[in-house]
């Protein structure tokens, strides 16, 4: 059993002892609650003294600065936690507190031993329930705990489990009671979350408090993840030298998607969604651009029941049809094993001491919070008679009910609850409320007190379990709030497990945040990812085209409104009408004020089709699902781009709008630069660039058709078009004469050397088409190449002086015909790509 840490009397010479130091002044623990920082006598506990002293020396101002810094790092890393139904929705930043939770070495050793024992015990319990069920047969485990438990998956009974490791990762939520004792209040056994956030917390905190981190001799986390990775790789049924391991995520809408992506990168596994995998002949494959590749191990973050629509929940779109069969045939390892959610409910807690004696011949080291399962008559009556003292919880987690706090319920609701318990007693437990311990958090430039729960992790090793020396400390959002959960909006802390001696450093990461070694598995490109990268390329380019077009016309609106200027403006407005960006009324005579307001809407209004904000929204949402393909730096550029939603975009000064457009154009340039300089020239990059070139080509053709081949207006728009295409300087250097249509067409359409010209895009597309994988489908690669060659021929035979001559004749002129033919070819190229590489088949259940 664990003991409360000794309460050292402080007659110490240390200057930190005694009164609370400056930055912690005013921090007063609550009576009857264990405080992590201070003793009942109000003195700083010995293991906190070094940290408290160091933070105090930094001072209030410096701490606040560093706290801002931490928040910036979190934003740039894109650390988010999605809260369902939250207005901030998908992009809620992760909340990390400045002050870590410190735990002394001896105390941690007891927790560690308890967690190892618990993981071994739960693993054996799972093996029995999904195997012989001797525990039920021999009366050690009441049958309803399994039979009435929605987490018991009958199709998973008797599945082979490699190495008998049902739990690859186990998490336990620990709370510390007033007497200093740590209690387990819940177990997470099917796909525990939070280990990645714990790692990210550590990376951020050790960056903003580097000296403090080193001086406190904090135990490192990396070796835990190394064991987790090696164990997983060792569970591969075949291919032991170089197993293919994937991390299966429910997708970007999941609350902890950030972590899935983060862990996949950190551990060097491929991040996949259910649709990326397929089962053939009881084997699991990943669908890549180069065909099917075998998968050996699946680290899953999809809940048990959703993993296979064939044998488990038929309405699941998150799983892989036939996965259970593949496991049954022993061809793939799923971690944690399918069905492990069974024991997440509190109903098992009261039986653990007995099971521990029975299965391990040992006393349970880490106690669980006192729990009564109502499936037993005596326990049921106890719970009903003591409702005001207890929390009533669902016995099984898959039930998905909220806990009831008896003390806070009305008499009528209590009666209703009692009726529900009597009706189906086996579905309920009563649990003693553990008064959570408190610790200081840094809020509004001072230390405040908050209750906390520590989520600790154990991972399977060769023949036992290894505990993460640290964990995810979660804090409740309010001083008195008894509920601690990320879903209810609390924050988190790094957990510093102190060591007696110097700490050795192990890391899986190089400084850039990339895994040390990328196995071939990480190089595989699922078709879905190629599809997303292609469209990311297209949206990014579409955004740039739109921004440049808007900037060109806004500049003229902001500057001169003279006679010449206004003719140019109305020609540009007319071009925007032809591009379907402005309503028809702007084709004729327009008031400049009206046009200005309409253009502002075209920048800021998210629901307006084709607006910059709408396209940026598409860029962001598509980027978020391929986040694992970009470095932190690249991602932080994308993350930073923002077009503020203003309630009244019409009132924004044009100068502000222009400044925003300039910033965004530069951000895009930075993103493009990162992509050019940092992205490996694999298929992923190729599809991103394909999207970009194809879209730029389309944007150009659309622009030229709307401007250069419009009767009477071409002359007016030559300069703006050069400007939009960023080619005005080049033109002036090359052609000393005034701006002429023939020369403009040569520079913007035919010149292969101008990256802002059309011919350049075609050349790039030709290069890509030659390197596309050809085994994916009949005609793959070759059809695309044929399309590009057709465009090259059209360009070669184009006689620009003649075309320029006809351009004034009207919309059906020869120039327009050429541009529209090219447009058709580009469209067909896009169709071929979609058909050959992105056509996703959808699974339907019948």
């Amino acid at each position, binding site marked *: 059993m664990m003991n409360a840490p000794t309460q050292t009397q402080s007659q110490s010479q240390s200057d930190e002892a005694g009164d609370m130091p400056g930055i912690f002044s005013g921090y007063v623990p609550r009576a009857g609650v264990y405080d992590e920082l201070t003793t009942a006598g109000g003195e700083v506990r010995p293991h906190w003294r070094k940290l408290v002293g160091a933070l105090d020396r930094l001072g209030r101002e410096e701490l606040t600065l560093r706290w801002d810094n931490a928040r910036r790092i979190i934003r740039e890393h894109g650390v988010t936690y999605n809260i369902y139904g939250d207005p901030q929705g998908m992009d809620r930043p992760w909340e990390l507190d400045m002050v870590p939770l410190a735990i002394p070495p001896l105390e941690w050793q007891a927790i560690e031993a308890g967690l190892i024992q618990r993981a071994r015990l739960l693993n054996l319990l799972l093996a029995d329930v999904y195997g012989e069920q001797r525990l039920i047969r021999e009366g050690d485990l009441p*049958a*309803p705990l399994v039979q009435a438990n929605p987490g018991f998956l*009958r*199709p998973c009974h008797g599945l082979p489990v490699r190495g008998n490791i049902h739990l690859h990762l186990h998490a336990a939520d620990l709370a510390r009671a007033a007497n200093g004792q740590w209690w387990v209040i819940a177990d997470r056994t099917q796909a525990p979350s939070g280990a990645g956030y714990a790692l990210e917390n550590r990376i951020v905190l050790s960056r903003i408090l580097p000296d403090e981190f080193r001086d406190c001799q904090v135990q490192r986390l990396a070796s835990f993840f190394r064991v987790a990775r090696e164990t997983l790789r060792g569970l591969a049924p075949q291919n032991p030298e170089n197993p293919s391991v994937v991390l299966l995520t429910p997708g970007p809408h999941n609350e902890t998607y950030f972590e899935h992506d983060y862990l996949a990168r950190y551990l060097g596994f491929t991040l996949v969604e259910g649709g990326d995998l397929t*089962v053939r002949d*009881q084997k699991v494959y990943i669908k890549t651009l180069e065909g099917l590749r075998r998968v050996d191990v699946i680290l899953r973050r999809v809940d048990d029941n959703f993993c296979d629509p064939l044998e488990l929940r038929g309405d699941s779109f998150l799983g892989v049809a036939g996965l259970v069969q593949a496991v049954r045939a022993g061809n793939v390892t799923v971690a944690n094993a399918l069905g492990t959610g069974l024991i997440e409910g509190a109903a098992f807690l009261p039986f653990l001491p007995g099971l521990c004696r029975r299965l391990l011949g040992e006393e349970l080291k880490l106690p669980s919070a006192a729990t009564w399962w109502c499936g037993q008559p005596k326990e049921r009556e106890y719970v009903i008679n003591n409702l005001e003292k207890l929390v009533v919880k669902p016995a099984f987690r898959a039930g998905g009910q909220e806990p009831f706090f008896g003390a806070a319920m009305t008499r009528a609701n209590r009666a209703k609850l009692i009726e529900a318990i009597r009706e189906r007693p*086996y579905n309920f437990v009563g649990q003693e409320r553990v008064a959570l311990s408190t610790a200081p958090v840094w809020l509004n430039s001072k230390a405040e007190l908050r209750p906390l729960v520590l989520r600790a992790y154990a991972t399977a090793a060769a023949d036992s379990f290894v505990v993460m020396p640290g964990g995810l400390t979660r804090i409740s959002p309010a001083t008195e709030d008894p509920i601690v959960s990320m879903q209810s909006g609390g924050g988190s802390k790094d957990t510093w497990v102190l060591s007696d001696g110097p700490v050795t450093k192990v890391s899986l990461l190089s400084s850039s945040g990339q895994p040390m070694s990328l196995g071939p598995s990480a190089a595989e490109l699922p078709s879905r990812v190629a599809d997303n990268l292609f469209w990311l390329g297209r949206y990014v380019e579409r955004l740039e085209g739109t921004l440049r077009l808007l900037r060109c016309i806004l500049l003229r609106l902001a500057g001169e409104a003279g006679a010449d200027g206004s003719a140019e403006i109305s020609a540009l407005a007319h071009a925007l009408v032809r591009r379907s960006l402005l309503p028809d009324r702007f084709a004729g005579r327009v008031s400049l004020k009206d046009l200005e307001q309409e253009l502002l809407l075209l920048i800021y209004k998210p629901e307006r089709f084709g607006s910059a904000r709408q396209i940026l929204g598409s860029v962001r949402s598509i980027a978020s699902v391929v986040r694992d393909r970009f470095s932190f730096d690249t991602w932080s550029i994308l993350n930073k781009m923002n077009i503020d939603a203003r309630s009244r975009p019409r009132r924004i000064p044009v100068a502000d709008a222009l400044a925003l457009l300039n910033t965004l154009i530069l951000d895009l340039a930075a993103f493009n630069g990162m992509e050019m300089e940092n992205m490996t020239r694999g298929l992923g990059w190729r599809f991103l660039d394909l999207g970009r070139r194809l879209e730029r080509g389309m944007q150009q053709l659309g622009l030229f058709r709307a401007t250069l081949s419009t009767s009477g207006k071409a002359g007016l728009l030559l300069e703006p078009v050069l400007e939009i295409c960023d080619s005005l300087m080049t033109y002036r250097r090359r052609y000393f004469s005034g701006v002429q249509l023939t020369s403009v067409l040569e520079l913007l359409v035919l010149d292969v050397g101008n990256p802002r010209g059309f011919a350049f895009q075609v050349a790039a597309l030709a290069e890509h088409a030659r390197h596309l994988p050809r085994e994916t489908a009949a005609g793959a690669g070759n059809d695309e190449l044929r399309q590009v060659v057709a465009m090259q021929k059209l360009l070669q035979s184009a006689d620009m002086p003649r075309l320029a001559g006809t351009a004034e004749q009207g919309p059906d002129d020869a120039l327009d015909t050429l541009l529209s033919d090219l447009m058709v070819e580009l469209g067909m190229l896009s169709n071929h790509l979609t058909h050959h590489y992105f056509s996703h*088949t959808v699974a339907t259940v*019948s």
Partner: protein
Amino acid sequence: MIYELSHTTTYNYSDTVSLSHHLLRLQPRELTRQHCQDVDLKVDPAPGSLRTQTDYFGNQLTFVTVKGAHKRLTVAATSRVEVLATPPPSVEASPAWSLVRQQMLDQDPELAMEAGEFLYDSPQISLIPAFQEYAQASFPAGRPVLAAALDLTNRIYRDFKFDPKATTVATPLTEVLKHRRGVCQDFAHLEIAFLRSMGIPARYVSGYLETDPPPGKARLAGADASHAWLAFFCPGTGWIDLDPTNNLIPTNRHITLAWGRDYGDVSPIRGVILGSGEHSLKVAVDVIPADEPRFRF
């Protein structure tokens, strides 16, 4: 009785399907009163893989994968099954229903292993108070459990109308209770819900029923259908089958295919296809007494 059984399922897909996985529970169970011979399963197009195993409830489960483009899938299961007539269980020998309920509540491991699975909520049967309210009238104090169950069966037969148009596989049980219409599957689910609400273990049975051709007419091929009923557990006696659709205790005209907690555990055929289009389904079932002359069209 010996029957020639044939159960053919044909899927037609509007779009080409590139890969399909199916789970089949089409092979009758081997029981003391039921023996199968000449079990055969034909899948067209020829499956890439076909494996048969025993599922958690002891049913024969076949897993079939068809690879390569196809627009139609046919699964034809045939067998020859002998079903022995069993003497009807005696009402007098059956214990009071409250005794059964208490025995199950006591969580005796042996009874729990035999019948505990079938006492609680299952994916398609969620126990709500309305079920107990309906069932109670059949369960006065001290009544033998078989008498209570037979009364319940009779009330369902009387109160509910057989109406194939009233429900689909997806209709919730509460709707069936409210509108008092449905088919054999609904009635089986209902009676299971009633019995479980009273604390009596009950399981879902899928299978076939020999039907009589119209008087003076020959039997039509494919005119029969899958059938469903239930069984409840009585300690000491074992499982007793009940058919609320026909208000009787099944004997040798009912052929047992599979059992489980509800339809979801035993659906004869369940599949996941990779493809985007619609599909239509045709099922033809024949239950033909082996000594009967056959007419086919």
